[in-house]
């Protein structure tokens, strides 16, 4: 028989407000095995822990039940407390009487009754607990960063500077992400390329950083400290080791029909191309969709003109397998598709553009060499309307329910820059709210209004239609209570952003979770903002939620700090609550291996002694270092052979029995 101590926590009024803690302690005092049952204001405090340690020694306890907050909060604390008093840490059970009881009940009697039941269940389980010993696993001292935007670059640089190897896998032909497409950046208006490209160069020159551009992650297995990742290096059809980046091929290519992604499709590029002048690596890619040779077999001009013989039409995708201790997702965002917003006429009118297109139209390396010309006729626009919140804060199903967070600021930036460069241009901004929290942000927006005379209109645009070469913008001015009509030359839509669509597939591979908007979820919204709930997987940049560059960089460095903390360890303590199979019950059916998300189960042929009958059987064997204790196999096994240490079927049934009594 176990000798059990029960410790009921008040958690100030968090628990004691709706649960009569004293009554709980009394109600379980006479349960079988309980030798001491008491309550205290804060069990997690030094004084509370001391009470537990003293009781363990005084009563020679073999196990303890702490009735307190969720085990996610303080299970580790109480396990350490028990260990300090000489108890096996797995002889500790937590009855969650806060999140699952006091916080959700209003009636104190009801809350108290439930707390007593939860305490009894924990006691019933503890009777069947056995001491467990955690094993150890080694840590591969290399990190993988998926996505090479500013977030991925910053995370990689910080990890590499701490002395660890980092691979960046970037799906496009160059690193840099969206920031490379921006012209100037708020709130200081420095040129995006001027501050980004040095970081790109640093990343490519760093001896600890290895770039896999034009590459994608194909598969992930393993677990924290020991991930195995398959990377597909897509064929560039250019031999990177021979190419000198001279660009002759890109000039001579006769195919000129491919939309230039870097310029948001505002102009065309060749079939063989380097996305932009400062691209890293400075090695072209052949777009097989548009290459004449790939389509018809004729052409091959690039191969003829290439002085380094670098063109290779036969090049195939290559699969590389690498091992990592930690993985960081930094997959960023894209603008939403505007098909649901036909009122703004984006598809019909060339002069209705997105803000990202405007960035390219303002940029010296863009299709208009930095002169603001409207796409339809290359004329200077004299009246420009900006519409904020296009597709954001929309619960109608057409757009996204969240605020995209960056558009108020970049719209102020755009409006200000246009008024600065072209003072003869009238600029109107339709807004629902102007949201500019952040250091020097509101000041920035007010400058746009007060110094640059940008006309901010409180209201939304209802429709944009083309009329005699002008865009008729009809919207409301709620402060004047008027409907206004503006004949504009250019309309700019501050379009909502959404996570890169590849993140869904990636989340499955990483067993990381995504929210209803496909943003990767953090382990704790406040206290663990850069960790995913999956151990060893971290989050950096807009893939976790909308952010501007300063916030992205801060988060990227935070993620790096977490990775460094992990890679600095030589060994990780494994969770001892892992699955194991009963060799006499296992019939080798393979069902458990099919459901195991971590690939922890193998089969061996082993001689077993089944009640005197000796025979060789195929039985499941769990790799304890790989098993994460999720329990999927235990419920799948048709023979009841799989069980989870610390959560055996008997233990769970004992809890259920105690609850139902």
């Amino acid at each position: 028989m176990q000798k059990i101590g029960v410790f009921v926590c008040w958690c100030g009024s968090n628990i004691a407000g709706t649960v009569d803690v004293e009554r709980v302690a009394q109600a379980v005092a006479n349960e079988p095995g309980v030798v001491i049952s008491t309550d205290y204001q804060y069990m997690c405090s030094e004084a509370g822990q001391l009470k537990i340690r003293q009781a363990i020694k005084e009563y020679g306890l073999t196990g303890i039940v702490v009735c307190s907050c969720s085990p996610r909060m303080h299970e580790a604390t109480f396990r350490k407390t028990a260990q300090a008093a000489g108890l096996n840490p797995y002889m500790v059970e937590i009855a969650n009487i806060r999140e699952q009881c006091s916080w959700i009940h209003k009636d104190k009697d009801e809350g108290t009754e439930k707390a007593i039941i939860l305490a009894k269940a924990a006691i019933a389980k503890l009777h069947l607990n056995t001491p467990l010993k955690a094993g150890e696993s080694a840590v591969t001292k290399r990190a993988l960063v998926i996505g090479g935007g500013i977030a991925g670059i910053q995370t990689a640089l910080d990890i590499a500077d701490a002395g660890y190897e980092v691979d960046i896998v970037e799906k496009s032909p160059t690193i840099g992400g969206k920031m490379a497409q921006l012209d100037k950046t708020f709130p200081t208006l420095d040129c995006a390329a001027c501050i980004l490209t040095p970081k790109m160069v640093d990343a490519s020159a760093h001896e600890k950083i290895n770039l896999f551009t034009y590459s994608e992650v194909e598969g992930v297995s393993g677990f924290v400290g020991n991930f195995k990742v398959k990377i597909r290096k897509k064929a560039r059809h250019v031999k990177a080791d021979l190419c000198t980046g001279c660009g002759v091929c890109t000039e001579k290519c006769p195919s000129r029909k491919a939309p230039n992604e870097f310029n948001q499709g505002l102009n065309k590029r060749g079939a063989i191309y380097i996305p932009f002048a400062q691209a890293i690596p400075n090695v072209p890619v052949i777009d097989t969709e548009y290459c004449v040779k790939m389509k018809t077999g004729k052409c091959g001009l690039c191969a003829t003109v290439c002085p380094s013989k670098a063109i290779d039409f036969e090049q195939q995708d290559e699969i590389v397998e690498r091992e990592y201790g930690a993985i960081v997702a930094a997959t960023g965002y894209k603008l939403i598709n505007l098909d649901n917003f036909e009122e703004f006429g984006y598809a019909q009118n060339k002069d209705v553009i997105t803000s990202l297109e405007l960035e390219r139209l303002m940029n010296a390396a863009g299709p208009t060499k930095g002169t603001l010309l409207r796409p339809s006729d290359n004329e200077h626009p004299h009246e420009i309307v900006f519409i904020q919140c296009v597709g954001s804060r929309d619960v109608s199903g057409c757009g996204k329910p969240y605020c995209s967070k960056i558009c108020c600021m970049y719209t102020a930036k755009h409006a200000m820059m246009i008024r600065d460069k072209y003072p003869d241009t009238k600029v109107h901004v339709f807004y629902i709210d102007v949201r500019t929290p952040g250091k020097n942000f509101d000041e920035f927006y007010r400058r746009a209004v007060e110094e640059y005379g940008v006309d901010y209109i409180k209201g939304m645009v209802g429709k944009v239609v083309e009329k005699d070469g002008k865009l008729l913008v009809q919207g409301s001015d709620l402060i004047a209570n008027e409907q206004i009509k503006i004949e504009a030359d250019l309309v700019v839509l501050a379009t909502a952003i959404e996570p890169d669509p590849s993140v869904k597939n990636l989340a499955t591979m990483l067993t990381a979770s995504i929210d209803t908007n496909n943003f990767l979820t953090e382990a704790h919204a406040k206290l663990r903002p850069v960790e995913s709930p999956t151990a060893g997987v971290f989050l950096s940049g807009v893939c976790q939620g909308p952010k501007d560059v300063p916030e992205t960089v801060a988060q990227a460095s935070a993620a790096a700090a977490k990775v460094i903390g992990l890679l600095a360890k030589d060994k990780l303590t494994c969770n001892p609550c892992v699955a194991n199979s009963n060799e006499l019950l296992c019939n080798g059916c393979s069902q458990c291996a099919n459901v195991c998300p971590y690939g922890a189960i193998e089969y061996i042929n082993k001689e077993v002694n089944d009640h005197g009958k000796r025979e060789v059987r195929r039985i499941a064997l769990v790799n304890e270092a790989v098993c994460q204790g999720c329990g999927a196999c235990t419920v799948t096994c048709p023979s009841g052979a799989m069980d989870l240490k610390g959560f055996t079927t008997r233990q769970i049934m004992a809890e259920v029995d105690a609850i139902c009594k």
Partner: protein
Amino acid sequence: MTVNEKELAERVIRISGVNTKKCMKCGKCSGTCPSFEEMEYHPHQFVSMVEKGQIKKLMESKSIWTCLSCFACIERCPRSVEPAKLIEAVRVCVIRQQGENHLKANAVPEKLDENMPQQAIVSAFRKYSK
């Protein structure tokens, strides 16, 4: 608001099924409304006035008859508030009042003129056959 107006507001909410609290006051409904100039109170004001219980003002206003029932405001609202349903509900409240003399549905055809859009004809029947 008087007791009577409170009842009216509740009736309008019940008939329309609209939750006025969902409105984020963006003004897109009024930005899109083709009958804006003809209306004393605009779609976004219907939402806020019903919220405040100012139903009598709305019932006395010509706006409820100049709304075209085109439902553009419903279509465009990013918060699915459906202002035109409130306008319709206020209209219904007026029509259901005892002793008031309004156009009957069978009197509509003689009022039709050639240039009237199809949609307006359909909505005229809908309005007056309540």
